[in-house]
């Protein structure tokens, strides 16, 4: 008897589901309410074509999509806003274009105030911010901070001295990207320190740039450096000049300068692409001491091979703090290192967890 009831039940559920198609529309969480998620499954009725339409606040139906997939998902992001009722209608057709079934779903879209998918990013940001700010404050209170030697920076005095001795200029290039890249800003910071030193030792500095905004900023930086060195009269406004925005056009021009002016020292500090090696090799052939620094992983090999000193990745950003020796600058470096330590520990724990088959940490940190 039980068996018969069970079979009966099974038969009816099959009947029920075979007629039915699954169609649901939901608000997408963690967004600004400008999209809805559609899901459908009409595989039971062997639909050949699915058409979905939408009505906004009961208005005229508009076409959303047509597909031959009987199961699927779709994100509708066309003119969706909050506070409007969206009613979707799905129509399934067979191969003769006859309607097999229809389904409806009504929903509202919502906007969220916090994106929970980015929780791990927020936590990591806070770790970095807190550790850096903490060490800046503790450095201000007079705590002595150690910082290891950065080999690439030893060249600065040597280069300036050599330029003075030989009576030749120093060439500085703050990369080939604009102010919307941090490497350029780091390069300009170092330009300030170098220009001050050059002003003190009465060496000339030439700075060709390939972006107009970098031109403005670099001019300010160099002018200020001469002022700080107490020699504002020695500042030549035309020592910072623009060539062209074009990557290789710029390189052609700089190559010409290197060959004709024969600078005693070249500094390439900033963001570089393929031009890195052309500059460094031409600089080598002119006999200059060369210092390079970039965070572009693809260009570092060329600088390492062709230059005398190279600031690798993070060293470029640490350089200005290192040279300034100001406590709060050094404090921020220390904070950065603490953040680094936390991340390395997290990495080791993550690997151990992965080995033991627990994927929690990796999944939590993965940001989509």
């Amino acid at each position, binding site marked *: 008897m039980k068996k018969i009831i069970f079979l009966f039940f099974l038969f009816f559920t099959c009947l029920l589901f075979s007629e039915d198609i699954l169609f649901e529309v939901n608000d997408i969480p963690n967004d600004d309410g400008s999209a809805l998620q559609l899901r459908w499954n009409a595989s039971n009725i062997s639909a050949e074509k699915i058409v979905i339409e939408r009505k906004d606040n009961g208005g005229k139906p508009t076409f959303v999509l047509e597909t031959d997939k009987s199961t699927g998902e779709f994100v509708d992001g066309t003119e969706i806003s909050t506070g409007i009722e969206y009613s979707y209608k799905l129509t399934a057709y067979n191969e003769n274009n006859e309607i097999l079934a229809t389904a409806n779903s009504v929903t509202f879209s919502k906007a969220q105030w916090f994106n929970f998918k980015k929780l791990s990013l927020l936590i990591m940001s806070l770790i970095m911010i807190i550790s850096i700010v903490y060490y800046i404050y503790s450095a201000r209170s007079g705590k002595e901070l150690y910082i290891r030697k950065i080999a690439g920076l030893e060249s600065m005095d040597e280069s300036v001295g050599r330029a003075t001795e030989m009576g030749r200029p120093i060439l500085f290039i703050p990369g080939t990207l604009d*102010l919307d890249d941090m490497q350029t800003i780091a390069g300009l910071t170092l330009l300030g320190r170098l220009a001050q030193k050059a002003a003190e030792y009465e060496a000339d500095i030439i700075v060709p740039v390939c972006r107009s905004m970098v031109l403005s900023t670099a001019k300010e930086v160099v002018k200020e450096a001469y002022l700080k060195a107490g020699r504002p009269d020695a500042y030549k406004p035309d020592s910072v000049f623009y060539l062209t925005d074009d990557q290789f056009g710029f390189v*052609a021009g700089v190559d010409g300068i290197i060959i004709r002016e024969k600078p005693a020292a070249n500094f390439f500090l900033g963001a570089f692409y393929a031009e890195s090696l052309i500059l460094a090799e031409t600089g080598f052939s002119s006999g200059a001491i060369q210092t390079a620094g970039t965070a572009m992983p693809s260009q570092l090999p060329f600088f390492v091979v062709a230059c005398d000193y190279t600031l690798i990745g993070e060293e470029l950003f*640490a350089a200005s703090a290192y040279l300034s020796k100001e406590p709060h600058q050094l404090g921020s470096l220390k904070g950065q*290192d603490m953040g680094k330590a936390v991340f390395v520990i*997290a990495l080791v724990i993550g690997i151990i967890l992965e080995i033991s*088959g627990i994927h929690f940490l990796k999944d939590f940190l993965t940001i989509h």
Partner: protein
Amino acid sequence: MEHFFSVLGIWLGALFTFAIFSFLYKDNPFYKVAEQIFVGLSAGYWFVYTIFFILIPNLFDPISQDIGANWIKLFPAALGIMMLMRLIPKTEWVSRFPIALIIGTTSGIFFLRYLKSDVINQLTATMINPFAGSDPVTIIGQLMLVIGTITGVIYFYFSKKHEGAFGVTAKIGIYFLMISFGAAFGYTAMARISLLIGRLQFLLGDWLGIISP
């Protein structure tokens, strides 16, 4: 007539190709001319490009078509004009405002972008089980991947002396950096030689017609 100009074009191309190549021998008037033409043409090109492909579609079109919906674009326009006030020495300092805005934006965006893509994503990509793999070569490789990444990051540690066990770890890190530099150099060599091949195919094919292009 069109044919004449297309032949002229190829000859011009070949001429400038040789002018640049001549720099490899030594600096000479041909290179100087090519260099100056390159600088001038490209500066002009980017000027025209900026007008047609940046300012018109991003600023002038939206404002002239529907200023009501795009009034916000007036802000960057005003900031752009502030930038131009550098041309007058007395108002030079005004350009610091747009620069400060851009540097603030860059700092904020880069803070997050690099934390996401270059720090967290690289960390999670390294969180693997190195012993999962069918053959010993893969397992050795994955172990190298994990050890190399960790020791490499430790090399960049600034606030601790590189000595003792810490120094050894940092040293291993440098070794991995060196291997990666060497390999990347060798790998890029291939792509760079392709560029020369492309140039020579132009000279030998399109220009001289010795090889079929």
